């Protein structure tokens, strides 16, 4: 239980991060109203949860970090948000993100970049950088984000917090603004595995409003295990390449040693199609985005950019001026790969490769491996501006995270050490709908790993 003023004060104190898009006055007013009606019997009673700005809320605007939705108020709320409120949680404002969740640094927001909570020259990761930075700065215990290619786990790793991407179909996407529909999932951030897991458990479960959400009960939280006896953890060799940052490798080696000490059987495995994951992703995600973002046309919602004499020039000027450079680039790329003459060369190949990547995981899990352990990102948080001019360098930041999205699998990132003060994340990838096992292992590892010690 917390009081509205204290919740708001903590968030306003983190203002320098530019992580929250909700103005302080509006936040205070809403928190006062919310706390008055929150259900005291709810399992998250009084827990402030910040929400990424591509998830619809009735309390605040939903802009997706874009000019094209500036000032947009949704007439309905996401199922995940409704479930949080029903559990007594407080919606603690909307968080800054890369425009339409396209980016890995939260530098592609129309509302300015988000600052890393530990080093103002660096990025918090992305696209859910605002949510990660607020949890990392201790302004909220938990936050919602969304994942299409690693947008929860990568910023969680950079900001030294826990990030969970659930199985595709575990959490309803009703009210999540669509980017890549075969990849998108709502994910959670927490200060600890437990904070993230209990928020995930509340938002998970069936929803008649989302036909891609599986007809399953909400996730049941496992207990903290005494050991990892009986767990078989696979180390995919493609995720530990020679060029991996040495500090990231040291932190991973330490975590692996600790899992062994806890009784886990650790063995090297291979996911041979891993090198093709990023190119596959950068065909499929823009293709789906070009279709999903066709709806922003200056007619039904958002501002209209004027000077248009007829309807088509209204579409073109609104979309041309309303979308930022990264979104424009991806819409064009997606339109290109889907266009006649190129469809087979790009989109069909990417779809086939996606099937092979998913099969790699099935092969490993079929051979008795319960979980995979990998670094979350190849390096710690990079400097702002460092990768802006080179889209491919930026995309490579997702190299270890996109595979779980392509295969629809659950994955968690947790802090496993630091290098020169910057957090390093370790990732556990689980089997579809076995988040409970994955969380159990994460609980055990979290208890022993020196998350804030230099690796």
């Amino acid at each position, binding site marked *: 239980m917390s009081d509205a003023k204290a919740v708001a004060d903590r968030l306003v104190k983190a203002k320098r991060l530019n992580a929250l898009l909700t103005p302080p006055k509006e936040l205070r007013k809403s928190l006062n109203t919310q706390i008055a009606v929150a259900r005291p019997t709810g399992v998250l009673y009084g827990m402030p949860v910040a929400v990424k700005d591509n998830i619809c809320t009735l309390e605040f605007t939903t802009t997706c970090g874009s000019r094209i939705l500036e000032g947009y108020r949704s007439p309905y709320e996401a199922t995940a948000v409704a479930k949080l409120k029903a559990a007594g949680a407080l919606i603690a404002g909307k968080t800054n993100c890369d425009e339409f969740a396209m980016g890995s640094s939260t530098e592609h927001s129309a509302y300015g970049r988000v600052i890393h909570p530990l080093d103002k020259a660096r990025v918090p990761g992305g696209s859910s950088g605002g949510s990660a930075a607020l949890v990392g700065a201790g302004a909220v215990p938990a936050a919602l984000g969304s994942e299409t290619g690693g947008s929860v786990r990568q910023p969680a790793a950079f900001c030294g917090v826990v990030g969970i991407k659930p199985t595709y179909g575990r959490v309803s996407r009703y009210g999540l603004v669509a980017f890549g529909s075969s990849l998108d999932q709502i994910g959670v951030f927490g200060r600890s595995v437990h904070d993230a897991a209990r928020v995930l458990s509340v938002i998970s479960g069936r929803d008649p409003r989302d036909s891609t959400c599986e007809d399953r009960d909400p996730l049941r939280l496992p207990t903290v295990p005494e050991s990892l006896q009986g767990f078989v953890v696979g180390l995919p060799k493609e995720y530990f390449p020679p060029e991996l940052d040495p500090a990231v490798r040291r932190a991973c080696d330490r975590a692996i040693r600790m899992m062994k000490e806890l009784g886990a059987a650790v063995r090297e495995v291979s996911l041979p199609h891993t090198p*093709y994951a990023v190119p596959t992703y950068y065909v499929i995600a823009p293709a789906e985005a070009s279709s999903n973002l066709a709806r922003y046309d200056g007619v039904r919602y958002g501002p209209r950019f004027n000077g248009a*004499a007829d309807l088509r020039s209204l579409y073109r000027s609104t979309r041309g001026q309303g979308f930022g450079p990264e979104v424009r680039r991806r819409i064009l790329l997606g339109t290109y790969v889907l266009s006649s003459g190129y469809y087979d060369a790009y989109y069909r190949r990417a779809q*086939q490769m996606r099937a092979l990547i998913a099969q790699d995981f099935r092969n490993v899990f079929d051979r008795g491996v319960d979980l995979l352990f990998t670094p979350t990102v190849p390096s710690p948080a990079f400097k702002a501006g460092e990768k802006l001019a080179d889209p491919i360098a930026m995309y490579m930041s997702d190299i270890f995270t996109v595979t779980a999205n392509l295969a629809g699998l659950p994955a968690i990132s947790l802090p496993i050490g630091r290098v020169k003060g910057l957090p390093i994340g370790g990732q556990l990838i689980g089997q579809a709908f076995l988040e409970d096992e994955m969380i159990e292992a994460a609980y055990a590892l979290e208890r022993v790993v020196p998350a804030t010690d230099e690796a």
Partner: protein
Amino acid sequence: MSVSREEVLRIAQVAELDVDEETLPTLAEQMSRILDYVAQLSAVPANGTVKVFVPGPDAIRFRADEVVPSQLAFGPKEFAPDFKEGFFVVPKLGQFE
């Protein structure tokens, strides 16, 4: 694979997106580099037997064919740029090819 300025303009038309002259060269250059990069997918032999993978439920769940009105907190007048008497107002259609 290199994308010309003309191709970018053609794709931009299909995507109903204005692209200004200044950003055109950078855009063409970046799109070319990205397409070159993803072209490594073609190194893998096309395999017609690979079943496309789609995550999510194995079977489509059907629900009763009933109209359930969406419970909206407020109507389009509140969020549309121009809405009058039940209609979204747009400029004239202009000349369609």
